[in-house]
């Protein structure tokens, strides 16, 4: 049943990572907008 | 507005191209040849690398554990072609199911396969309870 675990695992890991990356970028972008002098070059 | 017309033109051109390509190669994009088509090609098919697809004829599968030779017959209901393959088939390879083999057709009427791919249908159902 390794193939099933591999397929579900890759979908789970990819989408979780994508959500986390989006949320972090969103946090950085809103923070950069709020205080342009500080964390504006986070990315 | 000029740009919008330009985009529309690009879409139409690419659409027409795709239509022509698909129409033109529709006959050429076949993943596999059927046993009937192969026999119809006659001698010109001999020695050419190709894919042959059909149903594994029930009762035709013979596995020799000593020599690791697998023999079976692929059929499309009309024509049948004997196939020989060296090595074990995929797990789901069974008689009565679809299969596609890659290899060459010999002058002796035997298809020598170097790869076997199992083809399944779009029907899904739980196993019949005993």
């Amino acid at each position, binding site marked *: 049943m390794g193939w099933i675990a591999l*397929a579900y695992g890759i979908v789970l890991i990819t989408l979780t990572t994508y959500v986390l990356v989006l949320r972090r970028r969103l946090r950085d972008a809103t923070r*950069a907008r709020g205080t342009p002098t500080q964390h504006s070059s986070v990315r | 507005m000029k740009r919008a017309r330009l*985009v529309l033109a690009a879409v139409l051109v690419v659409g027409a191209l795709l239509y022509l390509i698909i129409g033109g190669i529709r006959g050429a994009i076949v993943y596999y040849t059927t046993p009937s088509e192969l026999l119809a090609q006659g001698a010109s098919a001999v020695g050419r690398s190709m894919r042959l697809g059909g149903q594994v004829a029930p009762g035709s599968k013979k596995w020799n554990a000593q020599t690791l030779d697998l023999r079976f017959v692929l059929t499309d209901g009309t024509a049948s072609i004997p196939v020989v393959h060296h090595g074990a088939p995929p797990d789901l390879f069974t008689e009565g*199911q679809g299969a596609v083999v890659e290899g060459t057709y010999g002058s002796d009427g035997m298809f020598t396969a170097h790869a076997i791919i199992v083809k399944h*249908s779009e029907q899904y159902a*739980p196993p019949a309870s005993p």
Partner: protein
Amino acid sequence: MRGQTFLGAIALGLLAAGAYVGLVASPPDAFQGEYVRIMYAHVPNAWVAYVAFAITCVASALYLAKRTPVYDYIAHSATELGVVFTGLALVTGSIWGRPVWGTWWTWDARLVTTAVLFFIYLGALLVRGLADDPRRGARLAAVVSIVGFLDVPVIHYSVVWFRTLHQPASLTRGDIKIAPPMLAALLLGLLAFTVLFAYLLTLRIRLARAEDAGEAA
């Protein structure tokens, strides 16, 4: 904002339910046994990718017509999501094919046209970087996205037009070729991924807007 979190929570719940039904509650298949469960992870990815590129196509056309940034935010976001989900559809299809067909990849019309779709929209993302002016990049991406969408019907009908290894659609109008408990697992997967997609799209559009505002500041 709160609505978005709510949407994410619903997506999470549906995904958990879908995984349970797909992995545990649904029966194995008569022919492929347990491997049929990979279908519940494969088909929803492909479906959501189609939805994403349909949105990309419409938003791109609106952007070219009206030049309002919001349409580009939508197009850009949907393109990125579509590339992610097409990639997942290709990978899960490959993993499904390995035990069932006996091969990871083969030059089948359905497989090739799907891989072409992946690269068309990857190209649409990359072409933005080629232009010095971001608005010019957005216009280029819009053109690629609209023209590239022509591949979607080709993929969908590839299993009908061409003789392929890939099986034809199991869900067509008036003809369902899946037993009810397996159909339930598939439909739940499709629903869960559609809600997840809606959540991700709203999140990604907010990000596009925020980053654009950040650069302008």
